């Protein structure tokens, strides 16, 4: 079970969180071409190594956060608020 540092509450057990998918996706504007929407809705990378993810602190402060997790080791490398960049930009 992971230990996830919530930017607001501090480090908490994974059971308090809900996984929310890839944090690097950018929602296209409503009038964007269908290709852009297709990419946003369906296409996902499956990186081997650091992966920026969204998590919801669902049983805690109910805030969404960004978490950088190494998919090989489960090491949690960093976390940030959704409006903040994780250190070093995108992996």
């Amino acid at each position, binding site marked *: 079970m992971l230990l996830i540092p919530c930017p*607001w*509450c*501090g480090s*908490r*057990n994974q*059971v*308090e969180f809900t996984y929310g998918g890839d944090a690097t996706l950018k929602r296209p504007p409503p009038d964007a071409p269908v290709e852009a929407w297709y990419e946003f809705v369906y296409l996902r990378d499956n990186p081997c190594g650091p992966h920026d993810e969204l998590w919801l602190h*669902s*049983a*805690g*402060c*109910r*805030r969404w956060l960004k978490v950088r997790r190494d998919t090989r080791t489960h090491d949690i490398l960093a976390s940030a608020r959704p409006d903040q960049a994780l250190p070093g930009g995108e992996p």
Partner: protein
Amino acid sequence: MSEADPTTIGSTAPGHYGSASTALFLREATIATAWNVHGDAGSASLRAEVQRIARLVLPMAANTTSKGEGVTALWLGPQSWLLVAADAAALGDFAGARDAVNAAGGALFDVSASRIAYAVDGAPAAAIMAAGCPLDFHPRHFGAGQCRQSLYGRVPALFYRHREPPDCTMLVARSFAHDVWRSLCTAAAPCGYTVRAAAPFG
């Protein structure tokens, strides 16, 4: 001591249950009013409005609480607080307060009936909490006046220490009340526990 059957683990009737030791006490802590404040923690007008309504200063630090006259404010998140009063008179009319908070750029939700509070008092309290909750209840990490949200078993729960440890109060959604109470009692049965009559929150 009442004549409760010590083997009916999960009963809410006052009395002693489980093993013989009498170091642990469970009871409901009654809540009359609970309002959920949302808003920008940096907004002076919001803080002033809450101060006018609840006569307390909202706690800004994570996992902390503040107290006014008959009202406790618990930090729930960077934009969310819970005002709790055991006496309905302490917080007054909801609609007026909501409009005032809305005008100050925040939100106010009436959740008075949403949660039930259970006070767990006595030396084994931390161990009983730890039977269901992954939080660290050591006094160095969770002192008096602090609160945290987490889980008890799989049920979301808000933990609050209004006194020095080991005593602890937990608030859970009312639909889960029977379930959480039974979990608490099952966890407490090996060391024995006494159910006391409900008393006001705080």
